[in-house]
């Protein structure tokens, strides 16, 4: 099954309300960050999409990247695992500088991450089983073990009955859940969620968020989640997964998950980096307008 990493332990990034970037150099008692951006900028035949972005993701931490549509959130996510290359700045992934790393060396590094794409990005010509097992099939894992691990992963997202289905016969929400199963099956050390609830109805969105909370609280895998839906972001921060009841429950009034923190983008610049409490009390005008 998908086992929690033994070494993972929560470590909260130091909040920096108002937009100052956190230091990338780890202190003596802190574990090194899983991801670290250092003054990253990128442009595509026009004005910069991202400018001078610096932040980090610590082990066990869930970072929620907020911002309106078209502000560069998905671009930032694709920079994390080298699907895009920055024009300037440096990116550390698992302690390795990936900015100038050749594509061939990036492939093994990417297998240590899981990524859930905006629309799921399932392979149309493959069954759910083959989609979820894609990485395992490439590695030559025996069929029996593949079947067992795929069923475990599908059980985690409560879609075991779709084992032999093709993606075309799944609903939008089911596709996202299969995509989550595909991202989790290889026991990643970092998960990247690109608008996992985008375009879904509220009930299905809550199901997806519950799965993300479950993943966060059961396996403690560090993650970076992109969304423009405040409700999803606040649900993630104010709920926990109750393993005994097998469902997501709210935290006591006034409490938030200490390992779930926020980043916010405005016109390609990082304008906020901190906790939910900092977010709610920030004087930044754009953030206040976004929250309202």
């Amino acid at each position, binding site marked *: 099954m998908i086992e929690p990493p033994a070494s993972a332990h929560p470590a909260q990034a130091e909040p920096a309300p108002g937009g100052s970037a956190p230091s990338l150099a780890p202190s003596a008692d802190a574990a090194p960050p899983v991801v670290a951006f250092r003054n990253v900028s990128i442009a595509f035949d026009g004005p910069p999409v991202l400018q001078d972005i610096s932040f980090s993701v610590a082990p066990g931490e869930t970072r929620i990247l907020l911002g309106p549509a078209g502000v560069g959130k998905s671009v930032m996510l694709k920079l994390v695992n080298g699907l895009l290359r920055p024009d300037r700045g440096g990116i550390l992934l698992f302690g390795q500088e990936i900015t100038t790393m050749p594509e061939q060396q990036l*492939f093994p590094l990417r*297998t240590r991450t899981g*990524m859930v794409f905006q*629309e799921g*990005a399932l*392979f149309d010509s493959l069954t759910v089983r083959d989609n979820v097992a894609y990485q395992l099939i490439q590695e030559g894992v025996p069929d029996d073990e593949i079947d067992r691990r795929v069923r475990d992963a599908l059980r985690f997202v409560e879609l075991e009955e779709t084992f032999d289905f093709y993606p075309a016969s799944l609903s939008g929400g089911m596709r996202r859940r299969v995509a989550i199963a595909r991202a989790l099956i290889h026991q990643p050390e970092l998960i990247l969620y690109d608008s996992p609830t985008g375009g879904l109805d509220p009930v299905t969105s809550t199901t997806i968020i519950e799965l993300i909370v479950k993943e966060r609280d059961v396996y403690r895998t560090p993650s970076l989640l992109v969304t423009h839906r405040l409700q999803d972001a606040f649900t993630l921060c104010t709920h926990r997964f109750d393993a005994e009841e097998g469902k997501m429950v709210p935290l006591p009034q006034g409490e938030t998950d200490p390992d779930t923190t926020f980043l916010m983008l405005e016109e390609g610049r990082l304008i906020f980096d901190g906790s939910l409490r900092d977010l709610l009390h920030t004087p930044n005008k754009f953030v206040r307008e976004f929250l309202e």
Partner: protein
Amino acid sequence: MAIAAIERTAKHMVLTVQDYSLFAHRAVMNLFRPPRYWTDFLIQSNIIGVGSTSIVLLSGFFTGGVLALQSAATLSEFGATAVTGRFVSITMIRELGPVLTGIMVAGRNASSMASELGSMVVTEQIDAMRALGVDPMRKLVTPRLFACISMLLFLTILADACGILGGGFVTVFMNHQNGTQYISQAWEHLRYPDIIQGLAKPLFSGFIIASIGCFYGMRTSGGTEGVGRSTIQAVVTSSVLIIFVDFLVTQVLLTLFPAP
């Protein structure tokens, strides 16, 4: 203003040629480095080879038939209808078989490669593949390239055979000439340089079809409209290149193996 537009277009063309050269180089070199996806090679060979057999057989047969009809009309003026078989076989094997097969396969497979890979690009499946640690160049492009080259060779041989058969059919049943004479003319005047010329061309055409189809597919942008654009570009570019490269190869091979 006009000069700036010309400069921009010229730069874009040079950049495209550069990108294509690097793309094709990577696709070829991947064959010499693991991992190699032999299952995908066999799947693509089935799609390209078996899938294109019917159109290649039909187009070859009717091309041979038309050649026999047209040549018999002209040759009869010189009292030379007996050499129809020689005319049909040499024309089919040296020129029309390889070129027509290339263009038919380009229409079917360059378009399918461009649209399939283009759809994968716009739905982020290519990015998903990269994120899962698999190189799309190795997994998708290299198997298509080598499957297309090897299958086009066999499809051309089939088209040549069907063309000669079609020519024979017209000669015997429509022109009412001697079938044995047709076959002996078709066979006896063939030389090895004719065969070499006929079998060298599909290697180039196969490379052009797969590399151009995959190249335009992999650089698709602009959603479903972009997929349509890539498909058109792939078919047009590969068809024109097949004829252009055919001209160059013919020139080179005629220099190497001059006519007796």
